[in-house]
């Protein structure tokens, strides 16, 4: 299975002949030395900044003067003043709107991408004239930078110029209406990343044994039965890996919201947009970090659920 290349267990290093413990130990030392630059880089750009974010999430701190922070426990998350004003971000309705919109976005875009990706992959996997052209065309939306596709679609949604906004909808400002904007954004994301899904599914399809289908044809199984009974179950591992990674990407979506809707609306359509607004625009290092930590926890929890529930194996 090509899709699962990284998930297959590592072939044990060839252990022909007898290796003395001395060689083993020195190989282990070499391996650590070879890994050192990567480990240091990861500690520097991921480990330490993550630690700082967690540290600031329990501090009252301002972005411009991070050194003058004071410990306030979990008050960034939940705190009510004597006057009854809720200051924690969990008490901010905008945060919950952002969470709801992000979840809607994730569920629908990933679902549609999987369905469309499956259709495209099945089409490209069958023999027809122009197959290699379609296979190439598939790569184009994927290769376009997200910001560029956001602008392209913002132009098409434009209520006075746009093919969709002006042409199809007769001058409705789709992006100005938050309840409709989320669907417009899902359409953009589906367009942009269906190809990626289709590529992964296609790779899975091509690893399925062809003689199995010949046998099924002989037995008179319809194409429909073959799809549900053979293709889909066998594709499960490839599909799951693709699903996990698309869901995680969708949960941390930022670019298209920010570019198409602007900083303020983005803060109520994506969790990431909300975090960035608190952190950078409002300069609230403490609150912003607390939001970041919450997003981190949400995403890591989902990873763990996926991995344990579906027994996805990454090596």
């Amino acid at each position, binding site marked *: 299975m090509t899709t699962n290349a990284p998930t297959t267990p590592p*072939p044990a290093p060839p252990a022909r002949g007898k290796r003395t413990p001395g060689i083993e130990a020195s190989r*282990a030392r070499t391996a650590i030395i070879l*890994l050192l630059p990567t480990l240091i880089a990861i500690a520097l*750009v991921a480990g330490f900044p993550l630690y700082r974010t967690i540290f600031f999430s329990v501090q009252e701190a301002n*972005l411009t003067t991070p050194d003058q922070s004071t410990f306030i426990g979990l008050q960034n998350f939940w705190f009510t003043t004597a006057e009854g004003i809720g200051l924690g971000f969990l008490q901010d309705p905008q945060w919950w709107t952002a969470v709801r919109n992000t979840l809607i976005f994730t569920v629908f875009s990933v679902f549609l991408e999987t369905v469309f990706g499956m259709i495209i992959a099945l089409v490209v996997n069958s023999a027809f004239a122009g197959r290699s052209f379609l296979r190439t065309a598939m790569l184009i939306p994927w290769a376009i930078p997200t910001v560029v596709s956001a602008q392209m679609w913002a132009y098409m949604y434009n209520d006075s110029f746009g093919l969709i906004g002006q042409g199809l909808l007769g001058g409705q400002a789709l992006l100005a209406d938050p309840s409709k904007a989320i669907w417009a954004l899902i359409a953009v994301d589906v367009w942009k990343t269906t190809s990626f899904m289709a590529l992964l599914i296609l790779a899975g399809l091509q690893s399925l044994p062809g003689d199995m289908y010949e046998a099924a044809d002989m037995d008179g199984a319809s194409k429909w039965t073959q799809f549900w009974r053979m293709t889909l179950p066998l594709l499960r591992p490839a599909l799951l890996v693709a699903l996990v990674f698309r869901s995680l990407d969708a949960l941390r979506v930022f670019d298209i919201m920010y570019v198409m809707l602007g900083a303020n609306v983005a803060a109520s359509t994506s969790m990431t947009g909300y975090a960035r607004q608190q952190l950078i625009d409002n300069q609230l290092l403490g609150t912003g970090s607390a939001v970041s930590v919450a997003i981190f926890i949400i995403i890591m929890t989902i990873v763990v659920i996926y991995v344990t529930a579906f027994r996805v194996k990454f090596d």
Partner: protein
Amino acid sequence: MNLKRTNPSMYYLQRTLFYLLVLVITAYLLFPFAWAVLTSFRRATDLFLPPLQFMTAPTTLDNYTQVFGNPSFRRGLLFSTIVAVGAVAVSLLFGSFAAYALGRFRFKGKQFIMYIILAVSVFPQIAVLGGLFTLITRFRLFDNPLGLMVSYLIFTIPFTVWVLTSFVRDIPGELEEAALVDGASPLQTLFKVLFPVMMPALVTTGLLAFINAWNEYLFALTFMSTNRTVPVVIANYSGASQFDQPWGPIMAASIVVTIPLITLVLIFQRNIVSGLTAGAVKG
């Protein structure tokens, strides 16, 4: 089962429907981009025209001249290139060391290190944004391409390590053993024996990492103020007044930024597909 002979009309109906589907898919995939290309060649005054007249309106290169005359766009191209190339070069170097170690050596804690690297590749960039911002300002790297380059390692390194490791495992072990028997040191083995074999993998991985770095928006938006990278320039492209969105130049700039990527992707498409699927576990 041969539908063509048993039921010709059914067969042709199926074929027609199938090609119709192919046509719909192709249009869906290509149309938005084609429309952007068309817009980039139209005058600002023609943007209001109804679609048919818009398509036949006179072609102009004005938008492109304007985009290349824009100093912040030119700087954006330069900074994007510096940052993306730098991040990819560092990642490929470090990543191939790590991939060699993870793909070929046996040692305690390997599984743990692989999980760490995987965890970093799935973790949301926002989780480090605040921490990284304070560090970048502390080291006076704000608005400095070096700071951005270093921060991009957070997604380019796990990605290259992961993909290269799966490639290294596919290299037959005999090659390395032969070098070992000849008394080559691990570094010699890596550079003289494995690197040449890994070349296609390095190109593919590098290209994919480059695309990710070239497209990155959140860090570029946050850690740079005047030295913007291309995606930020395109997102903020403004016209004469605040309310005037210059769609022609925006589309032209978008095309300029996208064409190199599409060209590279089309040239290396075979490798890209294998790289993407090998690195399905990507950040």
